């Protein structure tokens, strides 16, 4: 049986290529060109002067800081089903359920806290939620605090965050 061997020719086997020096000079030319043009016109560079200039390209699919949505009557959409806490790979969602007294639903969270230091912003909680109660559409990408406790975001804070891309309330039935 004939052996099925495909011989692949080596590229760049000429002396000029094996010497590497012309290629190195070519590369140095490119980098020095970038260096000098940027040194001469530092403000023409396509970069963001971050704290002064904020990013403008955050889309609706961006996973920012979480928020808890509301129903159309203004009450909390969450029914404390613990789906998000179960789906969470970093175990950073802490829910305490309680009886709901206003007749809209049966259960609601008494407390709902997210440890943003533990959170990996994977979005699994948003995927898991059957009530569209938790979303990551705030567009907030930096969480700032002086102490460890500042990063523990509670229910009131989560409810106070606004969606950055419209569609404020929960669309679940």
């Amino acid at each position, binding site marked *: 049986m004939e052996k099925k061997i495909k011989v692949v020719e080596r590229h760049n086997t000429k002396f000029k290529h094996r010497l590497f020096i012309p290629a190195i000079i070519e*590369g140095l030319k490119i980098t020095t060109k970038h260096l000098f043009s940027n040194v001469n016109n530092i403000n023409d560079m396509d970069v963001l002067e971050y704290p002064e200039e904020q990013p403008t390209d955050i889309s609706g699919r961006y996973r920012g800081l979480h928020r808890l949505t509301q129903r159309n009557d203004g009450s909390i959409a969450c029914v404390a089903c613990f789906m998000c806490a179960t789906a969470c790979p970093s175990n950073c969602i802490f829910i305490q359920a309680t009886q709901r007294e206003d007749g809209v639903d049966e259960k609601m969270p008494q407390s709902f806290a997210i440890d943003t230091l533990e959170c990996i912003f994977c979005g699994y909680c948003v995927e898991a939620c059957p009530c569209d109660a938790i979303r990551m559409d705030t567009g907030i990408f930096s969480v700032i605090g002086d102490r460890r406790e500042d990063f523990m975001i509670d229910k009131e804070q989560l409810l106070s965050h606004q969606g950055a891309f419209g569609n404020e309330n929960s669309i679940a039935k």
Partner: protein
Amino acid sequence: MSLSAIGVTLFSIVLALLLALLMIPVLVWLERRIAGLIQDRKGPNRTNLFGFRLGGVIQSFADVIKLVFKEEYYPAHIQKGQWLFIIAPAILFVSALLGFMVIPFADNLNIGGESFKIQALPVEWGVVWYLAIGSIGVMGVLLGGWISHNKYALLGSQRATSLMLGYELPLGLSVIAMIITYQSIDFNAMVAWQSDTLWGFLPAWGIIVQPLAAMIFIITIFVETNRAPFNVAEGESEIVAGHMTEFSAMKFAMYFMGEYIAMNAASAVVITMFFGGYQLPYLSTSELFTHFNVIVIVFMSILPFLIYFFIRWMHKNNAIRSTLISDGGRAFETKVLTITLILMVLIVEAIGFYLLKQPADSLVVGVSVMLLQIAVFIVKLMIFNIFFIVVRWTLPRFRYDQVQKLGWNYLLPLSLANIFITALVVVGLGV
């Protein structure tokens, strides 16, 4: 020992120390800024002292302060020989610093009939000293990797050691070719040899006389200083930080700074041996003395233009985009720097007028020629340091075995052939 001898020696030592140690923060900053600019980023430019950013060079000083105040930490698994853990980075740092000490910064200074070398260590065997001290430096890497009891550290130091075995040979052999050419192992004599011209129009720099030796030396000096593309002793993706893995705080900083001093020393040796040292092309020291007035006048007329273009560049580039409201005090910084620069130019011009009236054999003229040569040396040093940095951000890393192959299979035979040809030419032509 006369008073002037003590003065010149102290001046040389202080100058060498300043050039070696003050260059570290500048080089670290340059490395990060140039890396950024090559990759179309900005690099660190925000740290400031009272609103003065100086392009961000303050960042390196902030880094040093951070490293000094970090906790002195020893890994618990190092049971014996903790003192070796401190000594290992110190060996690298000190040997890199000592290697820099034999570089002549200017031609001999004549004071009252006596001639003094502007060299921190005024020896006549500078090349041998540099090679000897340079190969001690790798002991720091070896010891650091060994004492860490860490497989990554051990692998890193093992790589560094085998590279040293592969590269000291071509390095030393290319130096031997240069020694045959210059017929001296004294850096001063080498620089003096390079003040001539070849066939009347080319400066007789080492790179023109011995291009192959220059190429081999520059390649091997990249290995010697453990810099890209040959930085195989450390590699984030494969062996973490190599020999530096277990080191933290000031011990890490010693390794880090030693690397930059070594790079600085390597640049100094390269320009001393191959790029004419402190010499201006076509102007040897005696010509500097005979045409002193012309040179001062040319310098005085060029300087304002240079500073004018620098100020224009600064006004353009030390500003923020017009779309932003706050400039963070950059306009004020630019203003202060502009006034300072103009005042400095005025002072230098006044000194120039004073120098024009001095007799050619006075001490003032000698000192100003020396200062000019030191300035030329520093400019060349910076250009070569920047070359080091640009190369690091241009070339991809070599694989470990490829570096070995390059060293043993290509550079070693080439350097041997180079010695042979050099010796034939020197003996045959009887020069």
